[in-house]
């Protein structure tokens, strides 16, 4: 959980928010449970066994409020992570097979790399992901969430790295005996490095 791009950053924030909420709800529930065991008079017990409070209040209203807020928050973030139009967008392709990744570049037709994906830093990159054999998953944990590579389909994932550097990528969907070693690297270049890569003079 060391985000290095906007997508991973959003998700990391989401996680911390949800963790805090979950801990609070858990403690609250366990507290109610513990309170059930304290000693009381019978009238008090009857008083506390009201359906309205427990079912309509705690059972319905409480989770609906929390979940409604969370759902909207999740949808807003999800919408932000979508590969919508963007002026500086760069498009690359990723083709998975057992157990290798091949990458192609819209801005440098004909060039392909294996196991190493070059991208410009600071620019949104759309990765067009597909597979030629079984299902694989494209996942660079520090940059974004994962998206499956499915034979016959092309899925588009928006990634972006803030800083130049190398980021580890792995396959995110079980693919048989070579699954563990099915890795790749994403290399984010600065502006000069990216121009050099596109011109083939790196």
């Amino acid at each position, binding site marked *: 959980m060391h985000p290095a791009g906007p997508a991973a950053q959003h998700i990391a924030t989401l996680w911390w928010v949800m963790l805090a909420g979950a801990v609070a709800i858990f403690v609250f529930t366990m507290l109610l449970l513990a309170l059930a065991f304290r000693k009381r008079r019978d009238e008090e017990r009857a008083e506390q066994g009201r359906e309205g409070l427990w079912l309509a209040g705690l059972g319905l209203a409480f989770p609906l409020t929390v979940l409604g807020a969370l759902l909207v928050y999740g*949808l807003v973030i999800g*919408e932000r992570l*979508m590969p*919508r139009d963007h002026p500086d967008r760069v498009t690359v392709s990723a083709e998975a097979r057992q157990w290798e990744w091949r990458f192609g570049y819209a801005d440098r037709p004909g060039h392909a790399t294996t196991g190493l994906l070059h991208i410009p830093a600071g620019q949104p990159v759309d990765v067009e992901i597909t597979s030629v054999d079984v299902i694989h998953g494209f996942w660079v944990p520090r940059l974004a969430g994962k998206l499956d590579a499915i034979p016959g389909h092309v899925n588009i994932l928006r990634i972006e790295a803030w800083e130049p550097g190398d980021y580890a990528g792995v396959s995110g969907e079980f693919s048989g005996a070579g699954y563990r070693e099915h890795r790749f690297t994403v290399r984010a270049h600065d502006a000069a490095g990216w121009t050099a890569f596109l011109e083939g003079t790196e």
Partner: protein
Amino acid sequence: MRDLLRLSVPLTLWLALFSLIYGLHATLCATGAEGALARAMLAAVWGIGVALQLGMLLALRSPRFGALSPTIRQASVALAATALFATVWSLFPALILPLC
């Protein structure tokens, strides 16, 4: 048997609406039919669905269609309310999010 129907129809209707809107949306996207018409179709199905669920809820509360046993009545009204709510809640994204 009628009691079982009172209990099961509203949520089954939700399931049908859910599948219908999901399928309709997938078909619209697959055939490239984006735009106002597609949105209107989804919204119309959603609206009809909500109206049906509302009708169901009112019917189950009425003396004519409602259950005789208080427990079954309470449960069937609760289930109809759940179905109405589920229809509104789980399908509202069809109204606001971009289509495909």
